C-alpha cells in the first residue's frame, strides 16, 4: 500500500494557531492515546507493540486522541466506529493500518501497512501532524448519516406514552421528555430514566384521589429482578470496542442497578459466505485475514481442505512443521487471552507480561520457544497463586448442564473429551495427551489454558521448528474436501468444493459458533463484573462466528 501524509488533520479543533496552541499541539503529539478498533487484542495478534511506538491504549473514545484502525473492518463495525470517532474530543486523528479506509469516517490522516516498523513510522508522522495542525482556522465538521437520530418524546411516568412532538402527557400532565429513538449504537449516552426496554406495559392506573403519586402503585406492575425490587432497567451496550471484551463483540445487557437481568451477545464482524468464485491462494489469504485472532489455524484449515480436495496425501514432514506452527499460535492466543483478562480486571502487571510474552512467542522459532519456556511457566505459577484472582474466577460463569456443542478449552474445562487433535496421527506420534479440568467455571477455563500452554510447548519441542502453512504444489484440481483443525478456541471444520482450481462453495464451521450463544445464559442474574468475567472467560472470537 502507498503511504501518504494528509495535508491537514481531519479532526482539528477550531482556533487560529497561536504559541499556546502550538505548545498544546506538541504536548498532544507526545502524549498519543489511541482507541484501537477492533481492539487491542487484535493489534497484539498482528504483532503490533503499541507501547514501543509511544502510544497508550485508551479505554474510552473520550480519552483517545487517535483512532487506530487495525485491518479490514466489516460494514457494521465500520458504522459503529463512526459513532466512536464522533465521541472523541478534538483534536483527533485517524490512523489506519493495513486495510482500506473505513467508509463512514473522514479520510484517514495517516495510513500504513500492518507491521511494527510501519506503525513506528506512522506514529512519527502522526506526531508531526498533531504538533502542527491540531488547531485550524476552519476545520471540517464530521457529520454522517449514521449519527443522525430521531427524537421522540416520552412521559417519565408512563413509558407507553410516546409522541413525536414535545408537550405534556395525556395521562398525568407531566412534561414529556425527549429521547433518542432506537439509537442503541451510542454507548456513552443514556437517559437516567432509560425506559428504553419498552417490552412491558404496566397498563392504566389512577393516582388515587389526592393526586399524590404512590410509588407502590406506579411500580406495582414493573418487572421485578431477583432481589424483588422494582427499579428502572437500563439497556446498556458493551462493545463493540469495550476495553474488557473482545473487539467486534457487542454485549447488550439489561441492567438492574449493578445486576444483569438479561443479556445478548452479537458479533459485528462475523464471517459472511463468499459469493464469488476465488482462486485457492486468494481464498486462503482471505480466510486468514478474516480470522485475525487465529490466522495460522485457519490458514492450515484451508490448506488441508484444499489438499484433500486435490487428493493429496498428508506429508509427515510438512505436517510436523504445521503442527508446531499451530501449537505456537495456541500458546500466543492463550497469552493474548490472559492479557485481555488483565485488561478486564485492571491487572496491569498481567497485561504487560502476557502481552510481551505473546509478542515474543509469535516470532519465536522452535529453539526460542524452548528458551521462553521458563518465563511462561513462571507466569503460570505466579498466576495460580495471585491473591484475589481465584476469588474473582472461581464459581463464575459455570456452564449449564447439557450445554450442546462446546469446543476447545471451554469444553475441556467442563470435563468433555473434545479435541480434534486426538484423531490426528501426527499428534499421537508427538505424544499428545489430553488434559481435562472438570469444574466448568471461569477458574477451570483459566487453568485449562495454563495447562494447554505447557502441553503446546511440549508438542512444539517434539515437532521442531514451526512452519507457516503453505499450500503444497497442486495444479487446478476439482473435487470436494473437508478438514478439521483444533484452533486455539476449539474445533473448526471447513468443507469446500473446487472447480479447476477455483473455490466455488464453502461451508465453514467456526470455533466460536456455539459459544457466542452461551453468553446470554452466563450473564443472566449476575453482577455486572461477574457477567463480564464470565463472557470474557469464554475467549470469544467474534470473527470465528458464522453470520
Amino acid at each position: 500500500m502507498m503511504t501518504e501524509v494528509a495535508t491537514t488533520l481531519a479532526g482539528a479543533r477550531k482556533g487560529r494557531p497561536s504559541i499556546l496552541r502550538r505548545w498544546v499541539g506538541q504536548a498532544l503529539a507526545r502524549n498519543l492515546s489511541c482507541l484501537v478498533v477492533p481492539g487491542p487484542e487484535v493489534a497484539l495478534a498482528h504483532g503490533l507493540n503499541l507501547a514501543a511506538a509511544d502510544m497508550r491504549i485508551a479505554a474510552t473514545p473520550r480519552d483517545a486522541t487517535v483512532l487506530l484502525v487495525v485491518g479490514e473492518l466489516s460494514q457494521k463495525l465500520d458504522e459503529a466506529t463512526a459513532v466512536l470517532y464522533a465521541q472523541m474530543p478534538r483534536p483527533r486523528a485517524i490512523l489506519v493500518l493495513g486495510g482500506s479506509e473505513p467508509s463512514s469516517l473522514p479520510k484517514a490522516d495517516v495510513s500504513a501497512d500492518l507491521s511494527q516498523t510501519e506503525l513506528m513510522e506512522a506514529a512519527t508522522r502522526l506526531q508531526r501532524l498533531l504538533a502542527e495542525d491540531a488547531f485550524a482556522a476552519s476545520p471540517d465538521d464530521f457529520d454522517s448519516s449514521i449519527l443522525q437520530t430521531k427524537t421522540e418524546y416520552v412521559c417519565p411516568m408512563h413509558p407507553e406514552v410516546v409522541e413525536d412532538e414535545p408537550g405534556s402527557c395525556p395521562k398525568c400532565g407531566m412534561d414529556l421528555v425527549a429521547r433518542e429513538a432506537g439509537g442503541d449504537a451510542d454507548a456513552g449516552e443514556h437517559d437516567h430514566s432509560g425506559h428504553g426496554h419498552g417490552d412491558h406495559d404496566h397498563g392504566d392506573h389512577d393516582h388515587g384521589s389526592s393526586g399524590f403519586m404512590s410509588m407502590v402503585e406506579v411500580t406495582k406492575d414493573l418487572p421485578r429482578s431477583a432481589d424483588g425490587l422494582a427499579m428502572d432497567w437500563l439497556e446498556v451496550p458493551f462493545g463493540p470496542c469495550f476495553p474488557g471484551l473482545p473487539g467486534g463483540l457487542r454485549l447488550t445487557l439489561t441492567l438492574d442497578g449493578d445486576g444483569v437481568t438479561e443479556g445478548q451477545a452479537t458479533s459485528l464482524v462475523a464471517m459472511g459466505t463468499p459469493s464469488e468464485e476465488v482462486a485457492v491462494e486468494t481464498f486462503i489469504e482471505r480466510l486468514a485475514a478474516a480470522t485475525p485472532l487465529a490466522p495460522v489455524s485457519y490458514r492450515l484449515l484451508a490448506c488441508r481442505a484444499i489438499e484433500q480436495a486435490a487428493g493429496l496425501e498428508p506429508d509427515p514432514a510438512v505436517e510436523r512443521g504445521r503442527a508446531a506452527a499451530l501449537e505456537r499460535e495456541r500458546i500466543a492466543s492463550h497469552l493474548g487471552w490472559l492479557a485481555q483478562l488483565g485488561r478486564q480486571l485492571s491487572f496491569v502487571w498481567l497485561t504487560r507480561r502476557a502481552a510481551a510474552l505473546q509478542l515474543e512467542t509469535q516470532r519465536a522459532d522452535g529453539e526460542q520457544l524452548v528458551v521462553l519456556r521458563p518465563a511462561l511457566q513462571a507466569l503460570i505459577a505466579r498466576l495460580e497463586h495471585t491473591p484475589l484472582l481465584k476469588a474473582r474466577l472461581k464459581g463464575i460463569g459455570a456452564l449449564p448442564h447439557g450445554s450442546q456443542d462446546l469446543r476447545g478449552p471451554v469444553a475441556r474445562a467442563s470435563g468433555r473429551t473434545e479435541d480434534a487433535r486426538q484423531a490426528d496421527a501426527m499428534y499421537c506420534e508427538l505424544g499428545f495427551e489430553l488434559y481435562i479440568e472438570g469444574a466448568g467455571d471461569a477458574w477451570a477455563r483459566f487453568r485449562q489454558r495454563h495447562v494447554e500452554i505447557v502441553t503446546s510447548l511440549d508438542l512444539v519441542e517434539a515437532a521442531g521448528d514451526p512452519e507457516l502453512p503453505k499450500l503444497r504444489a497442486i495444479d487446478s484440481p476439482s473435487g470436494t474436501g473437508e478438514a478439521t483443525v483444533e484452533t486455539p478456541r476449539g474445533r473448526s471444520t471447513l468443507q469446500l468444493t473446487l472447480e479447476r482450481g477455483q473455490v466455488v462453495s464453502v461451508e465453514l464451521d467456526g470455533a466460536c459458533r456455539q459459544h457466542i450463544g452461551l453468553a446470554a445464559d452466563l450473564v443472566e442474574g449476575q453482577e455486572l463484573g461477574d457477567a463480564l468475567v464470565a463472557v470474557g472467560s469464554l475467549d470469544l472470537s467474534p470473527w470465528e462466528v458464522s453470520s
Partner: protein
Amino acid sequence: MVAQAFFVGVFGLAAIGFGVAVFRTASMVRSALALLFSQAAVGCMFLAMQAEFLGVLQIMMMATEMSIMAIFMVMFMMDPGGLGGMDMSHQKRFSIGAGAIAATTAISVALFSDWGPIFAEAPDAAMQTRELGFEMLDRSMLIFETAAITILTAMIAATAVAIPVRQPGVDTGKLDKENGDKEQEASK
C-alpha cells in the same frame, strides 16, 4: 464577636437557601444533595459558634446519610433525574400550616426560654471534646444506649418487614422458588 455573628448568619442563610432548593428542584438527587448541603451549613454554624466537635460531627454524618437517601430516591422514584419537571411539593395547604406553626413554636422557644447565664468565653475545643465525652459516658449514657438499641431494632425490623413473605410451593419468582425448595427439603 462581629465576625462570629456574621458567619453564623451567612451559614444560617445558606442552610435556609439549600433547604428551599430541596423543594424547588425536580431532580430527586439534587433534592437529596441540597438537603445534605443545608445540613452541612448547619454544621458550619456550629463551627462558627465555636462548637467544633458538634460541627465536624454534623458535617460528617450528613454526607453519608443524605447520600444513602439519594440512592433510595433513585431506586424507588420514577424519573429521579427530574426530566419531567415534577413538582416536589405536595399537600401544600397542610404543609404551609404545619410549617408556620413549627416556625412560630421554634422562635418562641428561642425567645422566651431562660437560657441561663451567658459565658463570656467558650471553653477551648479540646476541653469541649473532653467534656462531651464525659457527658456521653456518664449522665447521658443510658439515653444514648437506649436510642442506639432502638434504632438498631428498628433497622432490623424494617428489613425483616421489607423481605417478602415466602410461602413454600408458591411460584412468585425465581428466588422465592429456590428458597421454597430449600424449605421443603429442610422439612423432610
